[in-house]
């Protein structure tokens, strides 16, 4: 039964590519995605009611075959994938993307669902590798100037990381004789700690690159912020695809229970969080800012996963869930804005609230979500992330959130102010040259037409995401209990305290933005920070060596 979840999208993809026309492909895609979302939600309820479902492919006994398993965590991610892809399909309904786009989109979906469902470590390798190929093609889908470099960088770093992973997998196979995650975890728990350090270091280097933790994140802004990628691809990359890395991180840690690497990842996660927002503040490109903000949020999630108490782990999972929703909404909003205004530069986009009140409100909802404003989903997940942590970790988390607030203060400057008609400047130029400006006037008229009516399907897609951000906050603890089967409750006094901290952070964030960040020439220097390909390979080697040294000698 579970295998169908992986196979069906690929079959639909092939069907669309071979038989359907480009126009029919869209309609079939939306219908198929709706049906698939229904199935994913049905699977979620099944698992919730009857417990984990296990399917062995080929009907082999025990661990001889490949085992697919749907438990609470994986079904949540499967449902999330289905919903995100439905929204993506809805968003790109009115765009003429062609059949290839839909084909790749469906294949990508099935690969992601495969990653979330499989229990076989080699299966994970195959799926991640093929997903890297599919995503690199999608990144350069529009064949922009920059796209080839971005796509190739993403593909090559991803493949090299997976070679590390495969090498570590070989060690696991030698130690245990199985490729199944759970059985391997059982056997490895009885082994000597020192024999696990090398395989762990190899595997976590591969998984770490997929999560984009600190020295290994350079591919992320290129892939997620690439100007050539269609908007939905960026939204899905930052929304769902990066969660597959987090999911693997959560699955790999229990295999090596003997090695307690949580202290190491606590440090790495915090540094990632801080570096992510520090780089995001320097950006002026709307997509790059959101991409670096993703790095920061990933750092937050890794940190809270490493703290290791039950509340913070639940908070991290809920935050991963929430991050998919608001980041997808923000990327989609950014896609609409950059198209309407004809630029991706934040400083040139002003007055969204005046021109498009509805779109502005939805983007504002998503911003409130990601900064953790009271009553929004981000506040609930951040409340649980900070629950019961020691004081210095709490302050670090508050600091990371302050950084997020500064980043999104910069982002929200787009919403306010008055839009200055750039087209007028263009036509004035044309007049100076003594030309009639028919052409420009024409362009302006076209722009206005598009501007006055943002396509309905785009509005619906982004509005649903924004609304879920709000609902996820109001029914926060019910949502968590519903999704993860963990009984939690929000303590009113603690929540009020967090609200106060949020209010202070907002004031501080706006002041810091106004007096420190804005027009700061020093920060502009960090905008183009880039290790390059060779630097990223060196970072992989360095990260591997660091894990080996820290776990082998320091934390021994």
């Amino acid at each position: 039964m579970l295998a169908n979840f992986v196979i069906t999208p690929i079959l639909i993809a092939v069907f669309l590519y071979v038989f359907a026309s480009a126009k029919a492909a869209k309609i079939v895609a939306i219908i198929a995605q709706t049906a698939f979302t229904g199935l994913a939600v049905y699977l979620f309820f099944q698992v919730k009611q009857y417990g984990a479902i296990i399917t062995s492919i080929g009907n082999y006994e025990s661990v001889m075959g490949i085992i697919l398993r749907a438990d609470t965590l994986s079904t949540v991610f499967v449902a999330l994938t289905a919903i995100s892809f439905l929204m993506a399909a809805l968003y790109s309904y009115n765009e003429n993307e062609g059949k290839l786009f839909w084909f790749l989109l469906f294949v990508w979906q099935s690969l992601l669902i495969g990653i979330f469902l499989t229990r076989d470590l080699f299966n994970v390798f195959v799926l991640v590798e093929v997903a890297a190929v599919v995503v690199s093609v999608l990144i350069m889908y529009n064949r922009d100037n920059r796209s080839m470099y971005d796509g190739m960088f993403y593909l090559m770093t991803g493949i090299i990381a997976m070679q590390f992973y495969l090498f570590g997998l070989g060690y696991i196979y030698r130690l245990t004789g199985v490729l199944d995650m759970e059985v391997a975890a059982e056997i490895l728990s009885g082994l000597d700690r020192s024999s696990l350090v090398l395989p762990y270091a190899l595997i976590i280097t591969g998984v770490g690159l997929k999560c984009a933790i600190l020295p290994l994140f350079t591919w992320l802004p290129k892939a997620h912020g690439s100007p050539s990628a269609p908007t939905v691809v960026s939204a899905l990359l930052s929304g769902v695809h990066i969660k597959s890395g987090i999911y693997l991180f959560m699955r790999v840690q229990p295999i090596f229970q003997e090695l307690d690497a949580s202290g190491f990842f606590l440090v790495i996660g915090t540094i990632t969080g801080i570096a992510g927002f520090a780089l995001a503040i320097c950006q002026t490109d709307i997509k790059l800012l959101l991409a670096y903000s993703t790095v920061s949020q990933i750092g937050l999630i890794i940190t809270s996963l490493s703290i290791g108490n039950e509340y913070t782990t639940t908070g991290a999972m809920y935050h991963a869930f929430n991050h998919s929703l608001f980041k997808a909404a923000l990327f989609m909003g950014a896609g609409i804005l950059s198209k309407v205004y004809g630029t991706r530069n934040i400083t040139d986009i002003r007055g969204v609230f005046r021109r498009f009140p509805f779109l502005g409100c939805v983007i504002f909802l998503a911003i409130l979500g990601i900064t953790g404003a009271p009553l929004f989903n981000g506040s609930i997940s951040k409340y649980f992330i900070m629950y019961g942590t020691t004081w210095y970790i709490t302050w670090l988390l508050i600091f990371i959130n302050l950084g997020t607030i500064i980043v999104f203060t910069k982002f929200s400057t787009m919403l306010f102010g008055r839009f200055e008609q750039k087209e007028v400047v263009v036509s004035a130029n044309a007049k100076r040259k003594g030309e009639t400006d028919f052409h420009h006037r024409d362009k302006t008229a076209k722009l206005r037409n598009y501007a006055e009516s943002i396509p309905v399907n785009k509005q619906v897609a982004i509005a649903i995401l924004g609304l879920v951000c709000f609902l996820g906050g109001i029914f926060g603890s019910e949502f968590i209990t519903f999704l993860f089967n963990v009984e939690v409750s929000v303590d009113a006094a603690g929540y009020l305290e967090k609200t106060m901290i949020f209010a202070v952070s907002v004031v501080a964030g706006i002041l810091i933005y106004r007096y420190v960040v804005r027009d700061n020439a020093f920060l502009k220097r960090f905008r183009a920070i880039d290790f390059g390909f060779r630097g990223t390979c060196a970072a992989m080697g360095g990260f591997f060596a660091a894990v080996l040294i820290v776990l082998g000698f320091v934390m021994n």
Partner: protein
Amino acid sequence: MNYEIVEIFAIALFFISLFGLITSKGVIKGIVSMIIMEIAVVMFFLSLGFQTGILPPIGAELGDNVADPLPQALMITAIIIGVAVTAINMTMLIALSRQFKTTEWDILKKKNME
């Protein structure tokens, strides 16, 4: 030949190829290093199949010297993926070199920024 020699050789090859990735300036050499890295992993997996004294997974009367077939099966998959990835990388490289008139990482990075 003892399988441990193959294993040590595979590990050495893996890190030599990583060194190649870090130091080679050209994209083509980078791709070649990546292929070597894949070969290193394949060699390592093949060395796993020849542990003495393991039980044959199928067939009872095969004797003592049996090889585990699973690593070989896995590596066929990995090799196929590797070939596909290399082909895609080469295609991208052709497009890249036509566009930027160079195949060096550093120059590509600089031109990409503009």
